[in-house]
Protein backbone atom coordinates (compact mmCIF):
# COMPACT_ATOMS: atom_id res chain seq x y z
CA UNK A 1 0.00 0.00 0.00
CA UNK A 2 1.47 3.39 -0.96
CA UNK A 3 2.13 5.63 2.01
CA UNK A 4 0.42 8.57 0.22
CA UNK A 5 -2.89 6.72 0.00
CA UNK A 6 -2.87 5.27 3.49
CA UNK A 7 -3.78 8.44 5.39
CA UNK A 8 -6.60 9.14 2.95
CA UNK A 9 -7.93 5.60 3.28
CA UNK A 10 -7.60 5.73 7.04
CA UNK A 11 -9.47 9.02 7.10
CA UNK A 12 -12.20 7.61 4.86
CA UNK A 13 -12.49 4.51 7.02
CA UNK A 14 -12.74 6.65 10.13
CA UNK A 15 -15.29 8.95 8.51
CA UNK A 16 -17.56 6.14 7.39
CA UNK A 17 -17.06 3.94 10.45
CA UNK A 18 -18.22 6.76 12.68
CA UNK A 19 -21.43 6.74 10.61
CA UNK A 20 -21.80 3.01 11.21
CA UNK A 21 -22.74 1.74 14.64
CA UNK A 22 -23.34 -1.70 16.04
CA UNK A 23 -25.67 -1.62 19.03
CA UNK A 24 -26.09 -4.42 21.53
CA UNK A 25 -28.85 -3.59 24.00
CA UNK A 26 -30.54 -5.50 26.82
CA UNK A 27 -33.46 -4.66 29.08
CA UNK A 28 -34.24 -6.78 32.12
CA UNK A 29 -37.17 -6.37 34.51
CA UNK A 30 -37.82 -8.33 37.65
CA UNK A 31 -36.20 -11.29 39.32
CA UNK A 32 -35.37 -14.45 37.30
CA UNK A 33 -37.76 -17.33 37.94
CA UNK A 34 -36.62 -20.48 39.72
CA UNK A 35 -37.60 -23.78 38.12
CA UNK A 36 -36.79 -25.72 41.27
CA UNK A 37 -39.07 -23.62 43.45
CA UNK A 38 -41.83 -24.01 40.89
CA UNK A 39 -41.38 -27.78 40.88
CA UNK A 40 -41.67 -27.83 44.68
CA UNK A 41 -45.21 -26.35 44.59
CA UNK A 42 -47.86 -29.05 45.00
CA UNK A 43 -51.42 -28.52 43.74
CA UNK A 44 -54.12 -29.35 46.34
CA UNK A 45 -51.52 -29.09 49.09
CA UNK A 46 -49.47 -25.85 48.98
CA UNK A 47 -51.26 -22.86 50.48
CA UNK A 48 -51.28 -19.24 49.40
CA UNK A 49 -49.43 -18.26 52.56
CA UNK A 50 -46.67 -20.78 51.87
CA UNK A 51 -46.27 -19.49 48.31
CA UNK A 52 -46.00 -15.88 49.50
CA UNK A 53 -43.44 -16.96 52.07
CA UNK A 54 -41.35 -18.86 49.51
CA UNK A 55 -41.68 -16.74 46.36
CA UNK A 56 -42.51 -13.30 47.72
CA UNK A 57 -45.04 -10.90 46.25
CA UNK A 58 -46.31 -11.68 42.75
CA UNK A 59 -46.00 -9.08 39.97
CA UNK A 60 -49.69 -9.36 39.15
CA UNK A 61 -52.69 -10.38 41.25
CA UNK A 62 -56.29 -10.85 40.15
CA UNK A 63 -59.36 -12.14 41.93
CA UNK A 64 -61.99 -13.76 39.76
CA UNK A 65 -64.98 -15.93 40.65
CA UNK A 66 -63.64 -16.80 44.07
CA UNK A 67 -60.14 -17.66 42.90
CA UNK A 68 -56.82 -15.83 43.36
CA UNK A 69 -54.60 -15.65 40.26
CA UNK A 70 -50.91 -14.91 40.84
CA UNK A 71 -48.36 -14.13 38.12
CA UNK A 72 -44.62 -14.01 38.78
CA UNK A 73 -42.94 -12.37 35.78
CA UNK A 74 -39.42 -11.79 34.51
CA UNK A 75 -38.84 -9.88 31.27
CA UNK A 76 -35.63 -10.09 29.23
CA UNK A 77 -35.40 -8.13 25.99
CA UNK A 78 -32.36 -8.27 23.71
CA UNK A 79 -31.96 -5.88 20.79
CA UNK A 80 -29.01 -5.98 18.38
CA UNK A 81 -28.68 -3.84 15.33
CA UNK A 82 -26.49 -2.01 12.84
CA UNK A 83 -27.12 1.66 12.08
CA UNK A 84 -25.82 3.55 9.06
CA UNK A 85 -25.98 7.28 9.51
CA UNK A 86 -25.28 10.40 7.51
CA UNK A 87 -23.47 12.66 7.88
CA UNK A 88 -20.85 10.43 9.51
CA UNK A 89 -20.07 13.19 11.99
CA UNK A 90 -22.77 14.73 14.14
CA UNK A 91 -23.43 18.28 13.00
CA UNK A 92 -23.16 21.30 15.26
CA UNK A 93 -26.95 21.19 15.67
CA UNK A 94 -26.69 17.55 16.76
CA UNK A 95 -28.39 16.24 13.65
CA UNK A 96 -27.51 12.82 12.25
CA UNK A 97 -29.92 10.98 9.98
CA UNK A 98 -30.18 7.20 10.25
CA UNK A 99 -30.76 6.08 6.69
CA UNK A 100 -30.55 2.36 7.28
CA UNK A 101 -30.96 0.23 10.36
CA UNK A 102 -30.82 -3.54 10.44
CA UNK A 103 -32.32 -4.83 13.62
CA UNK A 104 -33.08 -8.07 15.41
CA UNK A 105 -34.91 -8.07 18.74
CA UNK A 106 -36.27 -10.70 21.03
CA UNK A 107 -38.39 -10.15 24.12
CA UNK A 108 -39.03 -13.02 26.50
CA UNK A 109 -41.47 -12.72 29.35
CA UNK A 110 -40.95 -15.71 31.56
CA UNK A 111 -44.10 -16.31 33.59
CA UNK A 112 -45.26 -18.47 36.48
CA UNK A 113 -49.06 -18.61 36.93
CA UNK A 114 -50.62 -19.92 40.14
CA UNK A 115 -54.34 -20.27 40.88
CA UNK A 116 -55.70 -20.61 44.42
CA UNK A 117 -59.22 -21.63 45.43
CA UNK A 118 -61.44 -19.90 47.99
CA UNK A 119 -59.84 -22.01 50.71
CA UNK A 120 -56.43 -20.55 49.81
CA UNK A 121 -55.02 -23.84 48.52
CA UNK A 122 -53.17 -24.09 45.22
CA UNK A 123 -55.42 -25.51 42.50
CA UNK A 124 -53.10 -25.38 39.51
CA UNK A 125 -49.72 -24.05 38.40
CA UNK A 126 -48.02 -23.37 35.06
CA UNK A 127 -44.63 -22.12 33.94
CA UNK A 128 -43.52 -20.52 30.67
CA UNK A 129 -39.80 -19.96 30.17
CA UNK A 130 -37.62 -19.14 27.17
CA UNK A 131 -35.78 -22.11 25.66
CA UNK A 132 -32.52 -20.22 26.03
CA UNK A 133 -33.06 -19.36 29.66
CA UNK A 134 -31.51 -21.12 32.59
CA UNK A 135 -31.58 -20.18 36.28
CA UNK A 136 -28.83 -17.75 37.22
CA UNK A 137 -25.68 -19.27 38.64
CA UNK A 138 -24.73 -18.08 42.08
CA UNK A 139 -21.00 -18.71 41.79
CA UNK A 140 -20.17 -16.85 38.58
CA UNK A 141 -17.41 -14.24 38.66
CA UNK A 142 -18.01 -10.55 38.03
CA UNK A 143 -14.71 -10.09 36.19
CA UNK A 144 -11.34 -11.67 35.49
CA UNK A 145 -7.78 -10.40 35.18
CA UNK A 146 -5.44 -11.84 32.56
CA UNK A 147 -1.67 -11.94 32.44
CA UNK A 148 -0.42 -12.84 29.00
CA UNK A 149 2.77 -13.43 27.07
CA UNK A 150 2.93 -13.47 23.29
CA UNK A 151 5.42 -13.94 20.48
CA UNK A 152 5.13 -13.19 16.76
CA UNK A 153 7.19 -13.66 13.62
CA UNK A 154 6.96 -11.12 10.83
CA UNK A 155 5.75 -12.68 7.58
CA UNK A 156 6.24 -9.56 5.52
CA UNK A 157 7.20 -5.93 5.81
CA UNK A 158 5.45 -3.25 3.82
CA UNK A 159 5.96 0.42 3.16
CA UNK A 160 8.53 2.77 1.76
CA UNK A 161 11.64 3.09 3.93
CA UNK A 162 12.98 6.06 1.96
CA UNK A 163 16.14 4.53 0.64
CA UNK A 164 14.23 1.38 -0.37
CA UNK A 165 11.20 -0.59 0.74
CA UNK A 166 11.31 -1.80 4.33
CA UNK A 167 11.22 -5.34 2.99
CA UNK A 168 14.61 -4.70 1.33
CA UNK A 169 16.15 -2.78 4.23
CA UNK A 170 15.35 -5.27 6.95
CA UNK A 171 15.03 -9.01 7.34
CA UNK A 172 11.97 -10.71 8.90
CA UNK A 173 12.04 -10.25 12.63
CA UNK A 174 10.11 -11.09 15.74
CA UNK A 175 8.03 -9.45 18.43
CA UNK A 176 7.59 -10.49 22.05
CA UNK A 177 5.61 -8.90 24.81
CA UNK A 178 3.61 -9.03 28.00
CA UNK A 179 0.08 -7.88 28.56
CA UNK A 180 -2.52 -7.26 31.21
CA UNK A 181 -6.22 -7.63 30.49
CA UNK A 182 -9.44 -6.89 32.37
CA UNK A 183 -12.36 -9.05 31.31
CA UNK A 184 -15.74 -7.96 32.67
CA UNK A 185 -17.66 -10.36 30.37
CA UNK A 186 -16.53 -13.36 28.29
CA UNK A 187 -16.95 -11.50 25.01
CA UNK A 188 -14.84 -8.43 25.81
CA UNK A 189 -11.39 -7.83 27.30
CA UNK A 190 -9.69 -4.48 27.75
CA UNK A 191 -5.94 -4.73 27.19
CA UNK A 192 -2.69 -2.97 28.06
CA UNK A 193 0.44 -4.38 26.48
CA UNK A 194 4.19 -3.79 26.20
CA UNK A 195 6.30 -5.24 23.42
CA UNK A 196 9.81 -5.51 22.05
CA UNK A 197 10.27 -5.96 18.33
CA UNK A 198 13.45 -6.51 16.35
CA UNK A 199 14.21 -6.57 12.63
CA UNK A 200 17.82 -7.33 11.61
CA UNK A 201 19.24 -4.93 9.05
CA UNK A 202 20.01 -6.05 5.53
CA UNK A 203 22.24 -4.86 2.68
CA UNK A 204 21.24 -3.42 -0.68
CA UNK A 205 22.97 -2.20 -3.82
CA UNK A 206 22.37 1.46 -4.55
CA UNK A 207 24.07 3.27 -7.44
CA UNK A 208 26.97 0.87 -7.36
CA UNK A 209 27.46 1.16 -3.61
CA UNK A 210 26.75 -1.40 -0.95
CA UNK A 211 24.47 0.07 1.69
CA UNK A 212 24.26 -1.85 4.98
CA UNK A 213 21.48 -0.97 7.41
CA UNK A 214 21.67 -1.60 11.15
CA UNK A 215 19.07 -3.47 13.20
CA UNK A 216 15.72 -1.88 13.98
CA UNK A 217 14.61 -2.18 17.60
CA UNK A 218 11.10 -1.16 18.59
CA UNK A 219 9.73 -0.72 22.13
CA UNK A 220 5.97 -0.43 22.32
CA UNK A 221 3.19 0.39 24.76
CA UNK A 222 -0.38 -0.11 23.56
CA UNK A 223 -3.94 -0.31 24.81
CA UNK A 224 -6.89 -1.88 23.13
CA UNK A 225 -9.86 -4.18 23.20
CA UNK A 226 -10.36 -7.82 22.30
CA UNK A 227 -13.75 -9.22 21.29
CA UNK A 228 -14.16 -12.99 21.39
CA UNK A 229 -17.06 -15.34 20.86
CA UNK A 230 -17.48 -19.13 20.79
CA UNK A 231 -17.13 -20.82 17.41
CA UNK A 232 -20.62 -22.27 17.87
CA UNK A 233 -21.93 -18.77 17.22
CA UNK A 234 -20.82 -19.06 13.59
CA UNK A 235 -22.48 -22.42 13.16
CA UNK A 236 -26.03 -21.22 13.89
CA UNK A 237 -25.77 -17.50 13.39
CA UNK A 238 -29.31 -17.22 11.98
CA UNK A 239 -30.85 -18.96 14.99
CA UNK A 240 -31.42 -16.04 17.35
CA UNK A 241 -32.25 -18.28 20.30
CA UNK A 242 -28.84 -19.89 19.89
CA UNK A 243 -27.12 -16.50 19.56
CA UNK A 244 -28.74 -15.39 22.81
CA UNK A 245 -27.86 -18.61 24.57
CA UNK A 246 -24.23 -18.39 23.50
CA UNK A 247 -23.66 -14.69 24.07
CA UNK A 248 -25.85 -13.79 27.01
CA UNK A 249 -25.73 -16.90 29.11
CA UNK A 250 -22.01 -17.52 28.81
CA UNK A 251 -20.19 -16.66 32.04
CA UNK A 252 -16.61 -16.08 33.03
CA UNK A 253 -16.34 -19.18 35.18
CA UNK A 254 -17.21 -21.54 32.33
CA UNK A 255 -15.68 -19.70 29.35
CA UNK A 256 -13.79 -22.62 27.77
CA UNK A 257 -13.30 -24.17 24.35
CA UNK A 258 -12.55 -22.65 20.97
CA UNK A 259 -13.38 -19.00 20.37
CA UNK A 260 -12.62 -16.67 17.49
CA UNK A 261 -11.35 -13.22 18.36
CA UNK A 262 -10.78 -9.80 16.89
CA UNK A 263 -8.44 -7.39 18.59
CA UNK A 264 -7.54 -3.75 18.01
CA UNK A 265 -4.79 -1.85 19.79
CA UNK A 266 -3.22 1.57 19.53
CA UNK A 267 -0.33 3.21 21.32
CA UNK A 268 3.19 4.50 20.98
CA UNK A 269 6.34 2.88 19.69
CA UNK A 270 9.92 3.98 20.37
CA UNK A 271 12.42 3.08 17.67
CA UNK A 272 16.15 2.86 18.16
CA UNK A 273 18.70 4.72 16.04
CA UNK A 274 19.19 2.76 12.83
CA UNK A 275 22.74 3.09 11.60
CA UNK A 276 23.81 2.89 7.98
CA UNK A 277 27.12 2.06 6.31
CA UNK A 278 28.23 2.78 2.78
CA UNK A 279 30.79 0.27 1.52
CA UNK A 280 31.60 -0.60 5.13
CA UNK A 281 32.07 2.98 6.27
CA UNK A 282 29.69 4.42 8.86
CA UNK A 283 27.48 7.08 7.23
CA UNK A 284 25.35 8.31 10.12
CA UNK A 285 21.82 7.21 11.07
CA UNK A 286 19.14 6.28 8.58
CA UNK A 287 16.49 6.92 11.25
CA UNK A 288 16.86 8.69 14.57
CA UNK A 289 15.19 7.35 17.66
CA UNK A 290 11.79 8.88 18.35
CA UNK A 291 8.24 8.08 19.46
CA UNK A 292 5.57 7.24 16.88
CA UNK A 293 1.90 6.37 17.02
CA UNK A 294 1.21 2.74 16.25
CA UNK A 295 -1.81 0.56 15.74
CA UNK A 296 -2.55 -3.08 15.14
CA UNK A 297 -5.46 -5.31 14.16
CA UNK A 298 -5.36 -8.98 15.00
CA UNK A 299 -7.69 -11.88 14.27
CA UNK A 300 -7.35 -15.47 15.26
CA UNK A 301 -8.43 -18.44 17.30
CA UNK A 302 -8.10 -19.03 20.99
CA UNK A 303 -8.70 -22.06 23.14
CA UNK A 304 -9.98 -21.30 26.61
CA UNK A 305 -9.15 -23.39 29.61
CA UNK A 306 -10.27 -23.00 33.20
CA UNK A 307 -7.00 -21.34 34.19
CA UNK A 308 -6.35 -19.34 31.03
CA UNK A 309 -6.15 -19.54 27.28
CA UNK A 310 -3.85 -20.15 24.33
CA UNK A 311 -4.24 -18.24 21.09
CA UNK A 312 -2.85 -18.05 17.59
CA UNK A 313 -3.50 -15.20 15.20
CA UNK A 314 -2.39 -12.96 12.39
CA UNK A 315 -1.68 -9.27 12.98
CA UNK A 316 -1.48 -6.25 10.72
CA UNK A 317 0.69 -3.59 12.34
CA UNK A 318 1.30 -0.02 11.27
CA UNK A 319 3.73 2.51 12.75
CA UNK A 320 4.03 6.17 11.79
CA UNK A 321 7.05 7.12 9.66
CA UNK A 322 10.37 7.13 11.48
CA UNK A 323 12.22 10.37 12.04
CA UNK A 324 14.87 11.25 9.48
CA UNK A 325 18.44 10.50 10.49
CA UNK A 326 21.73 12.24 9.94
CA UNK A 327 22.70 10.46 6.73
CA UNK A 328 22.82 12.12 3.32
CA UNK A 329 20.94 9.14 1.86
CA UNK A 330 17.19 9.27 1.22
CA UNK A 331 15.70 8.76 4.69
CA UNK A 332 12.26 10.26 4.03
CA UNK A 333 10.34 7.15 5.03
CA UNK A 334 6.65 6.29 4.94
CA UNK A 335 4.70 4.31 7.51
CA UNK A 336 6.22 1.03 8.65
CA UNK A 337 3.81 -1.86 8.20
CA UNK A 338 4.19 -5.48 9.10
CA UNK A 339 2.15 -8.65 8.93
CA UNK A 340 2.92 -10.91 11.87
CA UNK A 341 1.96 -14.46 12.72
CA UNK A 342 2.11 -15.56 16.29
CA UNK A 343 0.50 -16.77 19.42
CA UNK A 344 0.53 -16.61 23.14
CA UNK A 345 -0.60 -17.88 26.48
CA UNK A 346 -2.56 -16.17 29.20
CA UNK A 347 -3.39 -16.96 32.79
CA UNK A 348 -6.60 -15.65 34.32
CA UNK A 349 -7.45 -15.07 37.95
Amino acid sequence: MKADLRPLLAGALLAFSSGCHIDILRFRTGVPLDREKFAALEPRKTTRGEVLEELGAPQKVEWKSGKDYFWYLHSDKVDTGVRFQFPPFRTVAGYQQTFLRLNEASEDTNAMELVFGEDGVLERKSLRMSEAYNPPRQDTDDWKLHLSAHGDYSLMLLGDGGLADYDDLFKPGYRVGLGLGWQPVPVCTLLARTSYQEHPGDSIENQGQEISVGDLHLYGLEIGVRLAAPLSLLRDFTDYENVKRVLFEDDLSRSTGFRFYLEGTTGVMLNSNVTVKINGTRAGNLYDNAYQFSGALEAGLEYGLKWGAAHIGITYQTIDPFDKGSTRLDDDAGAFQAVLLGGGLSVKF
Partner: protein
Amino acid sequence: MKFSLIIAALAAFSAPGCAVLGRAQKDHRISPERLAEVKKGMAKEDVTRLLGAPQEIIFSNKEHDPLREHAYVFQHATTKYTAIFFLFLNFGNQDEKHDRVVVFFDDLGRVDHVGATLVANTAAYGFPFGR
Protein backbone atom coordinates in the same frame (compact mmCIF):
# COMPACT_ATOMS: atom_id res chain seq x y z
CA MET B 1 1.16 18.24 13.11
CA LYS B 2 1.41 14.62 12.16
CA PHE B 3 -1.49 13.22 10.19
CA SER B 4 -2.05 10.57 12.83
CA LEU B 5 -2.70 13.27 15.42
CA ILE B 6 -5.34 14.71 13.12
CA ILE B 7 -6.92 11.29 12.78
CA ALA B 8 -6.90 10.88 16.55
CA ALA B 9 -8.58 14.26 16.98
CA LEU B 10 -11.21 13.35 14.38
CA ALA B 11 -11.81 10.08 16.21
CA ALA B 12 -12.37 11.99 19.42
CA PHE B 13 -14.91 14.27 17.73
CA SER B 14 -16.68 11.45 15.95
CA ALA B 15 -17.29 9.41 19.07
CA PRO B 16 -20.60 10.57 20.60
CA GLY B 17 -19.49 9.73 24.11
CA CYS B 18 -17.64 7.20 26.23
CA ALA B 19 -19.93 5.89 28.96
CA VAL B 20 -23.30 6.73 30.45
CA LEU B 21 -24.52 5.64 33.86
CA GLY B 22 -28.00 6.48 35.02
CA ARG B 23 -30.47 5.59 37.73
CA ALA B 24 -34.20 6.12 37.94
CA GLN B 25 -36.44 5.49 40.93
CA LYS B 26 -40.21 5.31 40.89
CA ASP B 27 -42.51 5.70 43.90
CA HIS B 28 -41.57 5.65 47.54
CA ARG B 29 -39.27 3.07 49.02
CA ILE B 30 -40.81 0.40 51.22
CA SER B 31 -39.31 0.34 54.68
CA PRO B 32 -38.45 -3.23 55.81
CA GLU B 33 -38.80 -2.16 59.44
CA ARG B 34 -42.34 -0.87 58.91
CA LEU B 35 -43.18 -3.91 56.80
CA ALA B 36 -42.12 -6.19 59.65
CA GLU B 37 -44.74 -4.52 61.86
CA VAL B 38 -47.59 -5.61 59.57
CA LYS B 39 -49.06 -8.67 61.30
CA LYS B 40 -51.86 -11.11 60.66
CA GLY B 41 -55.17 -9.81 61.99
CA MET B 42 -54.19 -6.13 61.69
CA ALA B 43 -56.83 -3.65 60.47
CA LYS B 44 -56.53 -1.91 57.07
CA GLU B 45 -56.09 1.47 58.73
CA ASP B 46 -53.04 0.19 60.60
CA VAL B 47 -51.58 -1.16 57.34
CA THR B 48 -51.96 2.20 55.58
CA ARG B 49 -50.60 4.01 58.63
CA LEU B 50 -47.44 1.93 58.38
CA LEU B 51 -46.99 1.61 54.62
CA GLY B 52 -48.95 4.58 53.27
CA ALA B 53 -51.58 4.57 50.54
CA PRO B 54 -51.39 1.53 48.26
CA GLN B 55 -50.58 1.94 44.55
CA GLU B 56 -53.27 -0.57 43.65
CA ILE B 57 -56.30 -2.21 45.31
CA ILE B 58 -57.45 -5.63 44.18
CA PHE B 59 -61.19 -6.06 44.63
CA SER B 60 -62.90 -9.36 45.06
CA ASN B 61 -66.10 -9.42 43.10
CA LYS B 62 -68.17 -11.63 45.33
CA GLU B 63 -71.87 -11.49 44.72
CA HIS B 64 -72.74 -10.48 48.24
CA ASP B 65 -69.95 -7.89 48.60
CA PRO B 66 -68.76 -6.68 45.18
CA LEU B 67 -66.53 -3.95 46.55
CA ARG B 68 -64.68 -5.94 49.13
CA GLU B 69 -61.02 -4.97 49.16
CA HIS B 70 -59.15 -8.23 48.67
CA ALA B 71 -55.54 -6.99 48.64
CA TYR B 72 -53.40 -3.86 48.76
CA VAL B 73 -50.34 -3.56 46.50
CA PHE B 74 -47.33 -1.40 47.36
CA GLN B 75 -44.49 -1.03 44.86
CA HIS B 76 -41.19 0.76 44.34
CA ALA B 77 -38.93 0.38 41.27
CA THR B 78 -35.25 1.11 40.76
CA THR B 79 -33.80 1.09 37.25
CA LYS B 80 -30.11 1.35 36.44
CA TYR B 81 -28.88 2.20 32.93
CA THR B 82 -25.43 1.57 31.49
CA ALA B 83 -24.26 2.62 28.04
CA ILE B 84 -20.70 2.28 26.77
CA PHE B 85 -19.65 3.69 23.42
CA PHE B 86 -16.62 2.64 21.45
CA LEU B 87 -16.03 4.16 18.00
CA PHE B 88 -18.56 1.99 16.20
CA LEU B 89 -19.59 -0.60 18.76
CA ASN B 90 -22.07 0.37 21.45
CA PHE B 91 -23.35 -1.55 24.46
CA GLY B 92 -26.46 -0.73 26.44
CA ASN B 93 -27.99 -2.36 29.48
CA GLN B 94 -31.05 -1.62 31.57
CA ASP B 95 -31.77 -3.48 34.79
CA GLU B 96 -35.08 -2.83 36.57
CA LYS B 97 -35.89 -4.36 39.94
CA HIS B 98 -38.90 -3.85 42.21
CA ASP B 99 -39.78 -3.79 45.87
CA ARG B 100 -43.30 -5.21 45.93
CA VAL B 101 -45.60 -5.94 48.84
CA VAL B 102 -49.07 -7.48 48.54
CA VAL B 103 -51.22 -7.50 51.70
CA PHE B 104 -54.23 -9.82 51.56
CA PHE B 105 -57.33 -9.28 53.71
CA ASP B 106 -59.92 -11.80 54.88
CA ASP B 107 -63.70 -11.41 54.77
CA LEU B 108 -63.59 -9.29 57.94
CA GLY B 109 -61.10 -6.84 56.44
CA ARG B 110 -58.22 -8.05 58.58
CA VAL B 111 -54.72 -8.94 57.33
CA ASP B 112 -54.70 -12.57 56.21
CA HIS B 113 -51.35 -12.93 54.40
CA VAL B 114 -48.45 -10.68 53.41
CA GLY B 115 -46.27 -11.31 50.39
CA ALA B 116 -43.09 -9.25 50.06
CA THR B 117 -40.21 -9.13 47.58
CA LEU B 118 -37.68 -6.42 48.43
CA VAL B 119 -34.98 -6.54 45.73
CA ALA B 120 -34.93 -3.01 44.28
CA ASN B 121 -31.48 -2.41 45.72
CA THR B 122 -30.10 -5.33 43.66
CA ALA B 123 -30.51 -3.47 40.35
CA ALA B 124 -27.03 -3.23 38.87
CA TYR B 125 -24.98 -1.42 36.26
CA GLY B 126 -23.18 -3.64 33.78
CA PHE B 127 -22.71 -5.05 30.31
CA PRO B 128 -25.63 -6.64 28.46
CA PHE B 129 -24.15 -10.12 28.86
CA GLY B 130 -24.46 -12.82 31.42
CA ARG B 131 -27.47 -13.72 33.48
